[in-house]
């Protein structure tokens, strides 16, 4: 392996910095390094609570090759386990399902409770003998990853070394504490999935900044001009953009979605869109939110899982189903408009003379903030 390139040129001020080198987008060796130092070493999004809504619901997820099992236990708590039996390493659950009792390995039927304890190891001591002095049940529960649910996103720290989620993201939790209330998923039409040929970071970078809006999303220009946006930058934590002119969607009869309760005046016409490093993109507005989990499939392939949420459920407001449909279509259009740029930037990074690019000091602060964080994570990984 070649000596890794230094990232000093990234870790300087936005006025002078270059972006991350091409290798961070096209080199599988660097992708593997980022897997460990960036995605496993921090709190990454791996799914949504709405995918396991009922007690006993279990959903297997492959996160960068790690088999995970998302489980909601009988008390409603969400767990993320390694989807691997402690006996012979068999995958425990192949497809999403509801588990009424225990998680039974399909190979030798070792059984685990929804809270991860080993409940039975049949015939482990011989036929009809379910104990053995050297097989300690209490030591053989499922491997459990640290998990935290916020804005319905299930965050996981794979390497177990990150500071607690509430500590890492204390500033953002405080900034958006007004939206820390029940969210109601909009239903099947409010789930969007985009498969894009790009490195996952380019989706973050494009989401962070408003610079591209008048060029890529001209439909927003009529009411959401560039000058109505502001940068959001928290060094080492998150970045994004805000708007001062969020306008509610209105139906044919003038109907709107109900607001979240007790919001301050800021949100009457405000909306904020933040990348929660590394791979979660969130948006909040007075009447609906959305969450995007970027699933890095490979160095140059990413799946965007997009979910829309409302203050009131569809059951409570069935008359708004057409408006929810309209809103989903609107966001789908916006997110699809971004595909050509994230795929285009990916192609561009195969140009060997590209030097990571220079930033607009005025407009690209949020993107540079992200690059700086990624570089810091990588340097920390190299130093350890």
């Amino acid at each position, binding site marked *: 392996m070649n000596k890794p390139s230094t990232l000093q040129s990234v870790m300087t001020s936005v006025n002078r910095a270059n972006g991350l080198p091409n290798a961070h987008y096209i080199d599988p060796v660097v992708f593997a390094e980022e897997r460990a130092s960036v995605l496993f070493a921090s709190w990454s999004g791996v799914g949504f609570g709405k995918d396991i809504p009922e007690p006993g619901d279990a959903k297997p997820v492959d996160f960068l090759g790690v088999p995970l099992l998302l489980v909601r236990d009988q008390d409603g708590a969400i767990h993320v386990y390694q989807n691997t039996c402690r006996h012979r390493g068999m995958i425990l659950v192949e497809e999403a399902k509801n588990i*009424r*009792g*225990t998680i*039974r390995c399909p190979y030798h039927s070792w059984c685990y409770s929804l809270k991860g304890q080993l*409940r*039975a190891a049949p015939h482990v001591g011989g036929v*009809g003998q*379910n104990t053995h002095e050297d097989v300690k049940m209490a030591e053989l529960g499922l491997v459990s990853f640290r998990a935290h649910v916020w804005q319905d996103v299930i965050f996981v720290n794979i390497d177990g070394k990150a500071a607690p989620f509430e500590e890492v993201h204390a500033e953002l939790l405080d900034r958006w504490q007004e939206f820390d209330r029940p969210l109601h998923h909009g239903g099947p039409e409010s789930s969007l999935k985009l498969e894009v040929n790009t490195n996952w970071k380019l989706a973050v970078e494009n989401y962070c900044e408003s610079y591209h809006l008048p060029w890529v999303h001209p439909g927003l220009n009529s009411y959401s001009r560039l000058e109505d946006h502001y940068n959001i930058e928290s060094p080492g934590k998150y970045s994004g953009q805000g708007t001062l002119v969020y306008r509610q969607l209105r139906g044919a009869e003038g109907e709107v979605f109900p607001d979240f309760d007790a919001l301050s005046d800021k949100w009457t016409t405000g909306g904020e869109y933040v990348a929660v490093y590394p791979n979660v993109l969130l948006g909040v507005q007075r009447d609906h939110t959305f969450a995007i989990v970027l699933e890095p499939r490979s160095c140059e392939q990413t799946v965007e899982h997009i979910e829309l949420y409302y203050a009131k459920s569809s059951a409570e407001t069935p008359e708004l189903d057409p408006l929810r449909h309209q809103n989903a279509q609107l966001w789908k259009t916006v997110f699809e408009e971004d595909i050509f740029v994230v795929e285009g930037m990916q192609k561009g990074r195969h140009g060997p003379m590209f030097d990571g690019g220079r930033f607009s000091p005025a407009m690209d602060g949020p993107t540079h903030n992200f690059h700086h964080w990624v570089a810091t994570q990588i340097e920390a990984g190299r130093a350890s």
Partner: protein
Amino acid sequence: MNAEWTQISPQEAAALHAAILAAHANHDLERLVELYAIAADSKEREGDVDAACFFLTQAFVFALETGISRAHELNRRLVAYGRAWPLEP
């Protein structure tokens, strides 16, 4: 299947075996609990503790998987033979 029989005939044993295979094929877990428990009862009456505990274990595992309360009863029987740890409540 008549659980009151003291011993099951070869024909009954064959029918039980076929029923167990069918329940496996249909992923009918509650039925598997029932059938393995019948097999365990039969072996227990014959005094074949090892075979009884094999079938009790099978019944117990599927009862655990389905989350039915009978798992506790089956577990207690295995524990009584020294063949399992007591289930936590």
